[in-house]
């Protein structure tokens, strides 16, 4: 027999961490079942990294640059593709939070659970980040032997700290992008994909943002990815220390502090709107 009194504080029965972790576990289980896709993405990531980094070799063979500059270019492009693999994995995972569950048909059952939306989204973000770390490390491990790269001067700690700090802002951005499918059941997923494409264009993934037309550079400043790439390249190519990178870290801190709460609040507002207009789901 279960009494009502036992029931009322139910959301408090489990700590917030445990509720959020339920989403990490679920995504891990799903990920295991879709391992073939994971393999496809890994392959794609490796091939993409190689294909783009070989451009640097080509530049060297044409004698357009000194060998020092070629090694730098190789590193520049390698970091660009790897960081992009990382960022797009985080963006994909989190921004599909609604689309995926609509497709599975579970969205209503997930959203009616007594879990504060913030914990739900944080759980999804934690998985997104862990997933992206694993995938990117694998791509890195497979791709690096193709080039003779000297990591002698690299400051790995700086790179790791920048990536960790940057992950918050990317998660916030991804949650914002994930709101679109909630608002637009039919076109939302395409729209959040477009957001991702714009981030790719303006953040200097494969070039310095200074090559962009002035009006596009404005967007570079407001894309957290620009700062992540800058910080990681500073650490690995120029060997900058964490202390030297403080400006970038501060910028990423600000982005994270703004974007995560903004993402969560926007999601909650959009959810209310979807509940008002009947956009969550209509069949059944």
């Amino acid at each position, binding site marked *: *027999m*279960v*009494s*009502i*009194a036992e*029931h*009322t*504080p*139910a*959301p*408090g*029965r*489990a700590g917030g961490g*445990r*509720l959020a*972790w*339920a*989403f990490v*576990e*679920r995504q891990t*289980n*799903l990920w295991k*079942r*879709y391992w073939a896709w994971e393999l496809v993405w890994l392959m794609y990531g490796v091939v993409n990294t190689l294909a783009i980094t070989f451009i640097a070799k080509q530049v060297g063979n044409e004698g357009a640059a000194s060998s020092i500059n070629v090694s730098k270019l190789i590193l520049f492009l390698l970091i660009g593709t790897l960081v992009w693999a990382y960022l797009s994995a985080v963006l994909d995972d989190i921004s599909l939070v609604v689309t995926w569950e609509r497709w*599975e*048909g*579970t969205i*209503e*059952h*997930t*959203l*009616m*659970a*007594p*879990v*504060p939306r913030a914990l739900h989204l944080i759980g999804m973000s934690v998985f997104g980040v862990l997933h992206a770390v694993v995938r990117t490390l694998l791509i890195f491990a497979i791709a690096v032997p193709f080039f003779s790269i000297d990591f002698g001067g690299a400051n790995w700690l700086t790179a790791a700290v920048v990536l960790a700090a940057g992950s918050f802002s990317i998660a916030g951005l991804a949650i914002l992008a994930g709101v679109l499918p909630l608002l637009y059941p039919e076109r939302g997923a395409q729209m959040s994909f477009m957001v991702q494409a714009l981030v790719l264009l303006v953040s200097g993934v494969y070039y310095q943002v200074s090559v962009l037309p002035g009006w596009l550079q404005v967007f570079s400043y407001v894309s957290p990815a620009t700062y992540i790439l800058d910080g990681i390249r500073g650490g690995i190519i120029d060997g900058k220390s964490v202390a030297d990178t403080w400006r970038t870290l501060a910028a990423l801190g600000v982005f994270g502090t703004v974007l995560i709460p903004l993402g969560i609040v926007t999601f909650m507002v959009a959810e*209310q709107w979807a*509940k*008002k*207009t*009947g956009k*969550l*789901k209509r*069949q*059944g």
Partner: protein
Amino acid sequence: MLDELPLRAAGVAKTFGGGFDYGRLLPWRRDGHAPEPPRRVVDDVSFEIRRREIFGVIGANGSGKSTLIRIISTLLLPDAGEVRIFGLDVVRDTMRVRALINRVSADPSFFRNMNALENLLFFGKVYGLSGRDVREQSPRVLARLGLDWEQALEPMSHLSRGQQQKVAVARALLTSPVLMLLDEPTTGLDPRSKRDVQSFVREVREEHDATILLTTHDMEEAELLCDRIAFLSGGRIVAEGTPVELRRTIAAGRPLDEITMETVFMELTGRSVEEDEEPREVLAHG
């Protein structure tokens, strides 16, 4: 202190469509198809469910049953009226209400490539259960529903519709809801699964301290399971009472056992429960 009434709905209404279509601000959309006219799908619905009662909402496809269930399960906001679950308002006390209820919908809604146990683990944990709780309780509940444990370890997509629906019932029961919302739980099931689910619903009411709101368009099921029944037609509750009371309203001297529930429904609503309802437009907003 919680109100002892599991559910009280008063003047609940829901209209879909008819809002301003922002898409029409776009030049290329301006002379596209006309915006969807507003449709009142739930119209001034009021009823109460008492403790440990199985309350049936009977209506044809399109009569507004699922919309009503969604409002109660905090998935849709009503335009008017209020729903209270043990005195808690579904709109204002959403989180506390969510902890008290669970729902079985007509479609099983699972992560199809995960197995039943993984699904139950997830849907249990988001209600605050531990992994151990779920692992301990699921085998018993699934066995009672006639599912083998081996089947619980198969991807959901390998199970039949009936088996999936049984897992859905198990999922709802696992979180010990004090109010269970069963939205056409047996629609589309094979006769055997249907009987299994029905007898389980009865057992749940006997053995657990649960109150059940069940929607169906199956009269036999309604009579078999429900203590009281409301007929929903065009989003309105047209009649409400025990099966005997409902028969009595149209009996006019005839012996009650000669009157089928189908006849009662026909006479009170003016339509057959088997016939889908056409969308009905409203001009005024509710």
